[in-house]
């Protein structure tokens, strides 16, 4: 099965380039690549965000761990955590409802983000281990989206935010009890980059 997978998200080009042409290009490019007949070096991946702001931005690849700076540089991840109190919001079992406590936390996060309008964030959604794998991925997406939507309602531009769900794959607490599960049902606002 040698199929070349054509990027579906090329956007407006779909109007301009016929599918066969894309396929032909794909084959050409791939063939060249494998034959190492160098094309002009592609622009560094950092420039790809030029694609429409659909959340395709791939420059946000910092690991989902809040950095701990020695000094809290204003606008940094550490500064964010310090100023907002926490980067994490918790949820009830199988719920993605933003409760009062979560509102307070997200409100502070939104304030901070208002102060640093160039900072981009990734909102992670997580679930506890007491659910099936696929469902928990979707549930994590719900939680991340709920937190993101709340931030957006507080004035944070959606183009600054992306979401990602880790389902039950990245707990913070290792236990298999209600206390651990409660900590793992969460969304985490991760400062991805400041520019």
């Amino acid at each position, binding site marked *: 099965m040698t*199929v070349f*997978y054509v990027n579906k*998200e090329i956007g407006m080009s779909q109007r301009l380039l016929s599918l066969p042409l894309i396929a032909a290009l794909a084959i050409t490019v791939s063939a060249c690549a494998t034959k190492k007949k160098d094309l002009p070096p592609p622009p560094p991946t950092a420039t790809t965000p030029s694609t429409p702001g659909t959340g395709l931005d791939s420059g946000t690849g910092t690991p989902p761990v809040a950095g701990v700076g020695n000094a809290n540089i204003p606008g940094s991840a550490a500064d964010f955590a310090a100023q907002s109190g926490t980067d994490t919001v918790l949820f009830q079992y199988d719920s993605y409802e933003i409760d009062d406590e979560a509102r307070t936390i997200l409100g502070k996060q939104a304030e901070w983000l208002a102060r640093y309008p160039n900072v981009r964030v990734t909102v992670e959604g997580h679930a506890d281990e007491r*659910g099936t794998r*696929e469902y928990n*991925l979707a549930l994590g*997406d*719900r939680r991340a989206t709920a937190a993101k939507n709340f931030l957006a309602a507080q004035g944070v531009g959606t183009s600054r935010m992306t979401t990602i769900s880790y389902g039950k794959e990245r707990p913070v*607490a*290792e236990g298999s009890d209600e206390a651990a599960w409660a900590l793992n049902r969460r969304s985490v606002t991760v400062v991805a980059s400041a520019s």
Partner: protein
Amino acid sequence: MGPGLRRGDESSSEIHTPHKHPLPTLLSRCYTPAMRMIIASLALLTAFPAVAAPIRVDINSGIAQPLPIAVPGFATAAAQPTEAGTTAELGQRVAKVISDDLRSSGLFRPIDPAAFTTSVSVPDVTRPQFANWRTVAAQALVTGTVTANPDGGITVGCYAYDVFSSEELARQGFVTTAAGWRRAAHKCADLVYSRLTGETGYFDSRIVYVSETGRKTKRIKRLAVMDQDGAGHRFLTSGQNLVLTPRFAPNQQTITYMSFEGNRPRVWLYTLGSGRQQAIGDFPNMSFAPRFSPDGSNLIFSMSTGGNTDVYRLDISSRQLTRLTTQTGIDTAPSYSPDGRRIVFESDRGGSQQLYVMNADGSGQQRISFGDGRAATPVWSPRGDLIAFTRIGGGRFSIGVMKPDGSGERLLTNAYQDEGPTWSPNGRVILFFRSARGGPVDLYSVDLSGQNERKVPTPLDGSDPAWSPLLP
């Protein structure tokens, strides 16, 4: 008593011949009072016209138990060297693999070779001494030969016999490389299994799964494949990226899975042989829970958009993406029926995770699971007659099966957390993964009766198993 008694005595002298076989001895001792009653009542009968036709006997139940089978070491005319050992050594190993395969099915009970009265020479392979095998209570016999070929390969001859009817049931030769002796053994086991059960085998197949290691908070997950019996284990990915839910294509050469590569969780393809990995699309949102259509032309998977998750179908060659579900909620874990005409999936549209079936074009969506708790991760049996799924309720996660209309639900396991079933190619065995509370995560198998639950050994922890189709 009168003359009748005398006659009875005479007849009994005819009947009670020396015991040629222990069975009757055994049986003759197990008389019940009820039977005595019947017999006594016979004494009151008077003579009637003779019954012309042969006596007709009805037997409505037997005993479900593994079939005792003998698998002596495969014979070789002369021990010849091969890359994988001498043919004599291979003969022993082939028999062991066959024996282990058959035992693992729960349908056969290979007899301990220590009980065998003879070894098998080449002539015995085609002319077994059935009497010898009966004495060890074997009901079936598998014999064979291993021969080195001039090109360095081997030929494994595989023969199956019915010991009590002294009849040959099947024979087949397999030519392969010396290193391929395990596959030849699995093929032989499949031949025996299918001939004796009337169903296709499943031993010459593979499992792809996620190998897990490390702390829960920093779990390293890698794709790995191994033979159905755990041999030939190898990792496919390095563990750098989180990978989940690998599933075989019908051609067994491609695996679709989900990877977090580049922090962009989406569906990928892995090609065995070349090791090539490709994302299947650049969809803006998370795509996950992929599976192939039975003909391999389509993928179905979930995609989440703004907190709403739906099932999509992607035509692999045309790249056409079709949304199959539109309701609000989480629609995920889709799985095709073997005829490709329907899809079962889970949805929480009704409030909690339940199973739904729809036509392959998304029409006719209908809930099929009811009852207590939730139902998740449905997988359609390759036989088409059942759907395996995860039943969640009462703080337990169990593997169950139900018919495609939702009837006949049965739970096959009961544990703290069993999840993610996958079917053997013949639809008789289910593989799944079990998480112990605070403990390891392992692969397990269980057969359709709920019996024969076994841990499938893996080098590290294991999850998300998927069984390949039978290899060609």
